[in-house]
């Protein structure tokens, strides 16, 4: 065997280049991650989730308002009966109710006001003298008190046997059921949206890892631990998730911001009026916007978490 030639500096054959600071390329090339598609998926999911949450908040706020309005009232109907003077019965019931502890205001509807209530169904110019229309007395309750309804009923029936007392319990129950069902449906849709987001993000992460498998292998060769490699990918997915969350959440906020104006365009139409009656002005409260913003952050965090989980699972498969 020959002895080796003396070592020469190979650099002597090439021009010298001074050392200077450099902008290093990212470990994971940005273009290798299907970023736009993922941002779009997260933005759409966040938008849908935010609209769902906003709608649930609106419905439950309106339902709560309705419930509190209705729960703070008692309605007494005095039906006309042969041999009895309806006006006198109404006055007697009004008197009896005013004496009841916990009632702060009693308002008997006059004959004209009763005609006004029926006008949408029976038309104007109605004479109640020709119809056996019951008269309505509305009593407002002191907030936080529960009057003794059994005693009240007894007293009312004593002075006017054809009178009936309605505390709207059945109506409130139905309202509560409806608003609970709306919230449950909203939570269900949110859960589906979040699951769909996790699945989409997991697929995107898996795809990105497959596309970057040679990079991962080289990083393993130079001694990079899985945590270090995962962090390089994780930053991309966190930023993509935040971008998607911002677009989707921002879009939803704009939607609710403009919805009041949009609802105004339909006011006066039958649909618009019903909508307003059900959901008020269709505007979210400031706390609603905070919830939507927090939700966008949560979806971005879920995106990052799903990506990190998939990253480690995929890194385990790559040696």
């Amino acid at each position: 065997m020959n002895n080796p030639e003396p070592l020469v500096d190979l650099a002597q054959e090439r021009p010298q280049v001074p050392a200077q600071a450099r902008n290093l390329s990212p470990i994971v090339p940005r273009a290798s991650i299907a970023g736009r598609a993922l941002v779009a998926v997260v933005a759409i999911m966040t938008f849908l989730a935010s609209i769902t949450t906003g709608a649930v908040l609106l419905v439950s706020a309106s339902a709560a308002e309705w419930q509190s309005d209705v729960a703070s009232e008692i309605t007494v109907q005095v039906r006309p009966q042969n041999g009895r003077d309806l006006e006198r019965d109404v006055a007697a019931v009004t008197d009896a109710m005013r004496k009841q502890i916990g009632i702060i205001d009693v308002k008997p509807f006059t004959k004209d006001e009763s005609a006004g209530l029926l006008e949408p169904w029976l038309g104007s110019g109605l004479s109640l003298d020709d119809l056996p229309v019951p008269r309505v007395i509305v009593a407002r309750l002191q907030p936080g008190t529960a009057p003794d309804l059994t005693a009240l009923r007894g007293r009312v029936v004593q002075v006017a046997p054809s009178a009936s007392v309605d505390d709207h319990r059945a109506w409130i129950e139905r309202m509560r059921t409806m608003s609970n069902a709306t919230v449950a449906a909203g939570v269900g849709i949110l859960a589906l949206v979040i699951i769909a987001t996790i699945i989409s993000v997991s697929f995107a992460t898996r795809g990105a890892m497959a596309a970057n498998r040679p990079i991962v292998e080289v990083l393993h060769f130079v001694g990079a631990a899985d945590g270090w490699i995962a962090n390089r990918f994780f930053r991309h997915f966190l930023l993509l998730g935040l971008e998607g969350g911002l677009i989707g959440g921002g879009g939803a906020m704009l939607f609710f911001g403009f919805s009041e104006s949009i609802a105004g365009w339909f006011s006066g139409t039958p649909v618009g009026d019903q909508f307003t009656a059900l959901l008020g002005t269709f505007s979210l409260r400031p706390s609603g916007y905070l919830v939507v913003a927090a939700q966008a952050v949560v979806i971005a965090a879920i995106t990052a978490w799903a990506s990190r989980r998939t990253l480690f699972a995929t890194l385990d498969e790559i040696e």
Partner: protein
Amino acid sequence: MVRFENVGLRYGLGPEILRDLNFVIPPHSFQFLTGPSGAGKTSLLKLLFLSLRPTRGLVNLFGSDVSLLVKDEVADLRKRIGIVLQDFRLLDHMTTYENVALPFRVIGREESTYRKEVIDLLKWVGLGERMDALPPILSGGEKQRAAIARAVISRPQLLLADEPTGNVDPTLGRRLLRLFIELNKSGTAVIIATHDITLMDQYEARRLVLHQGRLHIYE
């Protein structure tokens, strides 16, 4: 530094391709690993680099039984090993400079602390003018030198090279061999897998010869 005792390796349910390997790689040593094509040289290098685990026997690397290592410990041990593969494995989106500096980035060193070191090494292997070039436009020999520079930049305790002169002309092959010898003189144990007898004849060193799955050692 490295100790193999009765090591065997098989892929899946196939036959044992490495059998009863018993050898030691002392620190600061230099050896060629040779044998006919398909003798298992690359598989043995993969065992040494912890890319494969033996199906039987004991592999002890830097005092650790590799069968007991968890993934992060494997990563730590790999930081002490440099490897040059036949297909170079350079990252195409990074410049030659960045590829060579990769081991430093992985351990979290600031670019300003290793810049001069990397540039000096690149000049030393004759890539001073190509440090901003991307691998796809490098010639085979330049890629080979970049891969070698990446393997040696962090001054590993053990250097594994799989056919490091397979893609270069004889003159460059001799230069690369001198690079490995120089590295060995500075304290790195070197294992060069090759079937190039001309290359082995240029330097007197221990030879590990694989034949039919068994290892024969010629001191």
